[in-house]
């Protein structure tokens, strides 16, 4: 399977995955997945439940151990032929990406501010700078005045926006979203998608696993449709959504339009 080059960018891709394999027991969740994400691009991964899209993100963020293939950040191998870099090196790679989870996974015993600032402070970032960055992120996320609140006092949409701010506080080069709105009702979904759209306008590089088709179509500049552990179809969102070539894609999208 050939690598995907988005919009023919010349610089090294921020993330490149080659021939990724992952199985849980006898269940092959990822079969030979390859993709690459160029700086400033937004890649949406769509597909039915169990197609492997979340596992793909979890492998890219080292939450899941892949069985084979390559994972490269900025052209450097985090995994090469199924062999991972050293623990220390992986720690270095971890600073390059951020992750936003379906269930937010905020730390409930920390205030909003501490949720956002603790990790950068532990990494030795300048205190003053961390604080200022957190404040500007909160403004950006529409969460002014919430710095001393606790997650349990916030709506799901607000919690997810705090989680996005927390991920951004570490200045990642790429941000992964694992079904960021699946735990939210439609109204709250809108406010989270709006924030992600803003990030896209700011040219944040992102990979978004989502079931929000209109969002994927409008915001991303590349769409990957996965089913049963393989990439069935990929390309420009207008092509994949407007004129899918694969029968499986058509069938999937038809179900969504109902």
């Amino acid at each position, binding site marked *: 399977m050939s690598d995907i080059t988005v919009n023919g960018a010349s610089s090294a891709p921020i993330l490149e995955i080659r021939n990724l394999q992952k199985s849980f027991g006898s269940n092959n969740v990822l079969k030979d997945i390859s993709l690459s994400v160029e700086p400033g691009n937004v890649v949406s991964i769509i597909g039915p439940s169990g197609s492997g899209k979340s596992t793909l993100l979890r492998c890219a*963020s*080292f*939450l899941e151990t892949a069985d084979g293939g390559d994972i490269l950040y900025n052209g450097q191998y985090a995994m090469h032929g199924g062999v991972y870099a050293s623990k220390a090196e992986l*720690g270095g790679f*971890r*600073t390059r*990406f*951020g*992750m936003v*989870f379906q*269930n937010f*996974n*905020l*730390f*409930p*015993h920390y205030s909003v501010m501490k949720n956002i600032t*603790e*990790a950068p402070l*532990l*990494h030795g970032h300048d205190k003053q700078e961390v604080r200022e960055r957190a404040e500007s992120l909160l403004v950006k996320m529409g969460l002014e005045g919430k710095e001393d609140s*606790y*997650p*349990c006092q916030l709506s799901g949409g607000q919690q997810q926006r705090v989680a996005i701010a*927390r*991920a951004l506080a*570490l200045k990642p080069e790429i941000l992964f979203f694992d079904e960021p709105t699946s735990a939210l009702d439609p109204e709250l979904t809108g406010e989270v998608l709006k924030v992600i759209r803003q990030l896209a306008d700011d040219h944040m590089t992102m990979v978004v696993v989502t079931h929000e088709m209109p969002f994927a179509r409008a915001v991303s500049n590349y769409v990957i449709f996965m089913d049963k552990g393989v990439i069935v179809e990929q390309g420009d969102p207008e092509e994949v959504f407007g004129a899918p070539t694969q029968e499986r894609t058509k069938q999937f999208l038809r179900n969504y339009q109902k």
Partner: protein
Amino acid sequence: MSLLTMIVKMSEGLGKTCAIFFLTLLFSLPLGMIVALLRMSKNKLVSAVTRFIITVLRGTPLMLQLLAVTYGPYYLFGANVARNKLIPVVIAFSINYAAYFAEIYRGGIESIPVGQYEAAEVLGYSRLQTFTRIILPQVIKRIMPSVTNEVVTLVKDTSMAFTVSYQEMFTIGKQIANSQTSFMPFIVAGVFYYVFNFIVDRIMGRIEKRLDYYK
């Protein structure tokens, strides 16, 4: 013997009762955490051995354990029985309570959603930082009611020290009851324990309340 004399005499043992209580907590609370971590070890042998020890400590009477720790060395090696019985008493209590606390800790640790670990990992927290900053504080909040239960039980269990004739409050009360053929010392002891636990309950309630700022 007047009631007042009884109360005064028994009060003299309260210091020792408190010594058992506080020293047991001091040692068993941290020891329980070590045992819990061993119990959850990925090494199957370590976890199985720890599990076995826990079942023995929880499955046999504390009274037997007290006797074993106090007199065991004499029967096994002919060693002298400790002059200061506080030492074997506190050892037996601490080990016994550590086994109970270990299971409480384990339940608490296992109840924390895996997403908390994953979020911390992606944010670059080390394993130790994840445990001490993210997991442990949440565990403490969750296990407070169960810990309070154990602490209340410990107050009453201190009376078990009479089996090795350690001169704490209850042991003195029992001696008075025997010599005076009176039931009164037991009533006095009951009141003492009740008041002690009343205070314990208040303190634990205050700690729980302080952790109430989040869900």
